């Protein structure tokens, strides 16, 4: 059985289609990379997979459970590291970890050691009692990652987890993830803009552009399909060299939406 099953997912914001009739599946224990230019619809897809957004059309099954009708069951199966910040800045690093442990009912036995080893892993143990608002961007990112690894879900969603991290931490993180994947059959769904990372860690890759999946397969298959030597070249050949204005226009679109919504009230 596939642990993630997305069929005909569509999400529209106003008259703009962010995700357009996307279908894919991820097998148990697989590492699946979702690649695409800025604004392609990666985060929106992850939000639909993780009950944060309601699909306009289509269906998501996580571990066989429906993301709309069995939200609690679905929430029990995954952990997530968001692309955008999601820490409580008024709490300390340790308190953020503790909060997460309680929400996810991580057993108290050995919890303190576990938090310690994760904070050591991301090199934040000596800052555990500092308020998060005093952290640098990279430190916050590392704390988000440590927190995401605190409970052991069946599926781990990583939305650009390595954004803004130094190469040491990145390598460190990926080998940790790979190890979890091998020892605990952890399924990983990740997005990243670092093609070498994806090539190195992912079993299978889907490339999404303008809300549509345009290619799927192993890194080797994608390279063969495009007759290129590296995943980066394959990616560029599939998505084109034009720089996406999506970042800007997308933001404008979002502001416009907000205003429209606020106006309605």
């Amino acid at each position: 059985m596939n642990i993630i099953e997305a069929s005909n997912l569509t999400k529209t914001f106003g008259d703009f289609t962010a995700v357009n009739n996307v279908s894919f599946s991820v097998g148990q224990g697989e590492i699946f990379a979702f690649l695409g230019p800025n604004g392609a619809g990666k985060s929106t897809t992850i939000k639909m997979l993780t009950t944060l957004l309601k699909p306009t059309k289509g269906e998501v099954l996580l571990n066989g459970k429906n993301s709309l009708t069995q939200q609690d069951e679905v929430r029990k199966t995954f952990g997530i590291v968001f692309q955008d910040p999601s820490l409580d800045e008024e709490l300390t690093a340790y308190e953020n970890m503790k909060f997460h442990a309680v929400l996810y009912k991580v057993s108290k036995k050995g919890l303190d050691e576990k938090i310690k080893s994760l904070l050591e892993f991301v090199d934040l143990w000596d800052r555990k009692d500092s308020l998060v608002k005093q952290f640098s961007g990279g430190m916050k990112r590392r704390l988000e990652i440590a927190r995401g690894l605190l409970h052991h879900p069946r599926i781990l969603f990583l939305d650009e987890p390595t954004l803004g991290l130094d190469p040491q931490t990145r390598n460190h993180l990926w080998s940790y993830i790979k190890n979890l994947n091998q020892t605990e059959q952890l399924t990983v769904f990740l997005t990243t803009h670092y093609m070498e990372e994806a090539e190195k860690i992912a079993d299978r890759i889907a490339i999404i552009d303008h809300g549509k999946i345009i290619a799927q397969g192993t890194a080797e298959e994608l390279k063969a399909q495009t007759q290129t030597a590296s995943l980066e070249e394959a990616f560029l050949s599939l998505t084109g060299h034009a720089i996406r204005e999506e970042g800007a226009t997308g933001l404008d679109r979002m502001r416009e939406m907000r205003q429209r919504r606020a106006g309605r009230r």
Partner: protein
Amino acid sequence: MSTIYILWLRQIKRYLRSRSRIIGSLGQPLLFLLALGYGFGPVFKNAGQGNYIQFLAPGIIAMSILFTSIFTGVEMIWDRQFGFLKETLVAPVSRFNIMMGRVLGGATVAAFQGLIVLIISILAGFRIHHWQSFPLAILFMLLIALLFTALGTAIASMLEDFQGFQLIMSFVVMPIYFLSGAIFPLANLPVVLNYITRVNPLSYGVDGLRIALIQQQHFNVGLDLFLLSALSILLVAFGSYLFSKIQV
């Protein structure tokens, strides 16, 4: 249970860490108490209504609880904008428990703030008639806090950012305060005002506080207790429904 507790604890920690907020939020009630209390004192006395500070203090306590409650409720908009809301939204815990933890935390903070204002009032000349009914006063403070934190949180579930907040202040919070009997007696009011004050939940909170603190009643304790509790429960339920509909 543990979800409720950890969310409650979070609110308390955040409150205790924001000293400037604690002090800042005491300025307004103090100003009202001194300006209105001493300003209108003589007029009130001449009208045969007795000591205005005695009458006003419970109203000012209710006011500070109302404002703090709404504010801690609406704080959820911050959580949405800073992204922390996502962390609670994807957690495998019931939406009702999340709502409950938030509301209880905010309400504790607001009731505590009310208690501080009570102490300030006493320093400013307010006297509690019977200390035996002091626990009842605390109960009313908690109920007012609960009701309006639930209201604030429910409102916040529907707002994406702070743009709508000013509207809420002007058209919900201010009217609730001014039309509640907090600053004037409810007896012999014009018909329309009489009607409005009767549907305003804060009227019953203020009444309860006056009963407990100075043995002065307009409605009665039983009614006050019942209405405040029933409405709080309704609002928490309604709030968790709205909360479960949030998308980020």
